[in-house]
């Protein structure tokens, strides 16, 4: 093993560990807006503060997204199992709600500053 090998290995491990700390914060940062994606296209970004119903056309039909009380969820969906409706809601802590059959994705964006990196469930 040469000096180059050791340097490379050390660098890769260090960068890997560093990214471990930095990446989740960057990728999963919470937000005050919900981004609605349908079939790889961003349909729109809506502030969580305003109550609204959004009709999102997808592959199978129309998914209805509800924004209420600072949280976004899927109100109704044309998909067979309604897993997306059972996924609950996403709020400023960050997260994703996905409807696979209809190819609709909700996610919250923008960082928040109360010291919490992310919440998983």
């Amino acid at each position, binding site marked *: *093993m*040469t000096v*180059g*090998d050791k340097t*490379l*290995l050390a660098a*890769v*491990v260090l*960068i*890997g*560990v*560093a*990214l*471990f700390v930095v*990446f*989740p914060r960057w*990728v*999963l940062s919470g937000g005050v807006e919900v981004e609605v994606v349908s079939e*790889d296209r961003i349909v729109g970004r809506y502030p969580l503060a305003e109550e609204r119903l959004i009709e999102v056309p997808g592959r199978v039909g129309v998914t209805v997204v509800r924004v209420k009380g600072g949280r976004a969820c899927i109100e109704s969906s044309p998909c067979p199992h309604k897993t997306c409706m059972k996924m609950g809601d996403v709020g400023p802590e960050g997260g*994703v709600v996905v409807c696979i059959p209809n190819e609709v*994705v909700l*996610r919250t964006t923008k960082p928040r500053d109360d010291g919490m990196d992310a919440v998983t469930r």
Partner: protein
Amino acid sequence: MTDQVVKLARLALLLALATVIHTAEGLIPITVVWFRFGFANIIGLATLELFGFKDALVVTLGRIVLGSLAYGLFGSPAFVLSLSGGICAVVAMGLAYRFTAGVFSEIGISVVGALAHNVAQLTVAYLLFIRNEAALLLLPLMMLTAAGTGFLNGLASRVFVKHFRATAVNIPSSRSSECKRA
């Protein structure tokens, strides 16, 4: 003439070995180990060292195509990921081998290859299949596994090349002109 045949036979053997390792590795239950060790790259790296970049590319592409045919995964997303990773790994290892002579041993080159493989796979997966930033969360994890598997494969490749050179007399690639005269 003879040395060409000898070279072809040896490359065929390496390709067969790589395909078997590639296929056998897929049998490791995915619930226990979710990442691949990339053991087949041992042969890719050894071919690079013994016969050069072009042959390493042929062996790697060949084992990915043959391995996926054996699994019935030819043309599937797994095949596309495997292919993109394989090509990038060989190109990166070829460049590292050529332009950083003396800096890296087999281990370093293997780590470079493993890194290129993982980064290429993740990029392709993100661009073609997942399109969600959450997929990028795997990057640090994949970097760490690349360091580990790259190290192991590099060691194995060194042993393989040493053994190959010791047992297979008269490897013709470097002195083909001499052989032609004789």
